[in-house]
């Protein structure tokens, strides 16, 4: 199911303000890629361009190409709705639908395509998705209870279950652990390790230990100052970025000398 992502010379704008400039990188299938960098450097903005969620904000737009297995997401005639069905996203704060039960939350995305799914098939998908998100054992007895009654870490895994239920090709995670305690964070990190065997995963994180623990490759973003666009400084194997980076700014950042 996983696909290669190629980004070519991408500029991202909010109105006339250029937030991210000239990003070119290639993400291999079945890998975890981490985006790190100081606040405001555009890494969250950039990850949202990979499933066309960026343009949800009024005035936001993109120049350049994002290819998933050779198909340009920003090509003419490409429906952003269909793009988002292939590229799932997990957000910074857990956001299960409060008006839906745990079961309905998992099925929310599937119901968009296939409203008449037989009950047995739906049950199997709920179980498979919750298993895939390591949540099944904790919630199997209360599938009809509201998703908002779970703990933060459970809610985030519910969101991951909801995302993988639609069988996306890529999963984007925008600081998925920043609102969670260390134990829940560990659970999500273990889960990322497992999901990697099936999906291409891109994760934004502020936690450098997390980037070094979970990712195969790391991209370091930086800005020169307020009002300047963010840029991709260095993109390499995670071990290289953390032990022997080729750019001074990267070394300073990962060793904690600035930021």
């Amino acid at each position, binding site marked *: 199911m996983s696909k290669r992502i190629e980004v070519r010379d991408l500029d991202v704008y909010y109105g006339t303000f250029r937030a991210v400039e000239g990003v070119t990188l290639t993400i291999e299938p079945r890998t975890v890629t981490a985006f790190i960098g100081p606040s405001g450097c555009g890494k969250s903005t950039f990850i949202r361009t990979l499933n066309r969620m960026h343009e949800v904000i009024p005035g936001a737009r993109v120049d350049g190409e994002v290819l998933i297995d050779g198909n340009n997401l920003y090509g003419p005639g490409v429906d952003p709705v269909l793009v*988002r069905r292939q590229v799932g996203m997990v*957000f910074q704060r857990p*956001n299960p639908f409060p*008006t839906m039960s745990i079961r309905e939350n998992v099925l*929310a995305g599937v119901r968009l395509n296939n409203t008449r799914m037989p009950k047995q098939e739906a049950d199997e998908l709920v179980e498979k998705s919750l298993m895939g998100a390591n949540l099944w054992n904790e919630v199997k007895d209360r599938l009809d209870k509201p998703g908002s*009654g779970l703990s933060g870490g459970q809610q985030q895994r519910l969101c991951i279950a909801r*995302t993988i239920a*639609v069988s996306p090709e890529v999963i984007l995670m925008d600081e998925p652990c920043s609102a969670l305690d260390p134990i829940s964070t560990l659970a999500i990190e273990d889960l990322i390790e497992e999901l990697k065997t099936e999906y291409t995963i891109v994760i934004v994180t502020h936690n450098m230990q997390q980037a070094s623990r979970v990712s195969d490759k790391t991209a370091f973003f930086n800005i020169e100052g307020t009002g300047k666009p963010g840029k991709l400084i260095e993109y390499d194997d995670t071990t290289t970025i953390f032990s022997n980076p080729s750019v001074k700014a990267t070394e300073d950042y990962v060793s904690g000398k600035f930021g």
Partner: protein
Amino acid sequence: MTAAPARIAAKKRLGDTLFSGAALAAGTLILVVLAAVAIFLVAQSIPAFLVDPAEIKGSPDSFWSYVGPLVFGTVWAAALALIIAVPIALGISLFISHYAPRRLAQGLGYTIDLLAAVPSVVYGLWGAGVLAPAIQPFYAWLVDNAGWFPLFTPPVSGTGRTILTVAIVLAVMILPIITALCREVFLQTPKLHEEAALALGATRWEMIRMAVLPFGRPGIISAVMLGLGRALGETMAVAMVLSPAVIISFVLTSSQNPTTIPANIALNYPEAHGIGVNVLIATGLILFVITFAVNSVARWAVSLRKEFSGAN
């Protein structure tokens, strides 16, 4: 056994004392007012329930056969008004909150608020003077072509001043309040939930159905109840449009129309004396009970899915 250490209570500050006193007084006042109204209604109504029905205007069999058609007219007119107004109000508020460009949305919002400020007597004048004559040919056409349908049984009203005209006027009156409240509710939908829906590949309409409407459901119900309250209690617009008959009839286009409790009170009160006043007040008590019942049902409906409100 050790003695529990003496706990020091927070000191009473002057501001706290004043404010808690003021809040308590305000809360008590509303209960006192409500109780005063209820006591007045009940006390003044009792003679009407006990009197010989022959003394009631129109000499009905009993008080209940006098008030029955009025209750029916009140509920029927309000229900029709809601059927017309609620879908339109939801459409307008969704357009303002999620579809319209920001500047247009702002202008529309002001216009809606302005509509809410038009006095009801103006709507009554418009209904009787403009809407009724203008819509009469349409009623005639309906009765000619769909007369077999029980709601449009002939004969048609020659003036257009029917219960349906009343319902349309009421719908226009309650539209702004429902729209304004729903718009506020829809704007409160957390961005987080909207983005969750969009990221799953929902179109805008699907996003509204997944995130906005379920989240706003308690607010929508409250808004509809406020609109219904205004429709049930509306006096002038109904009194000016309708020429009432004592009748229970679902027909929308006839010249024989049930009237509503408030309009009936307004029309008859100036000439009422003695037991007649008590009878009118008793109908007011019935209206009070209806409104109370409707609100309780709405509260119950909201509480049904409390777990899923997202408040936890």
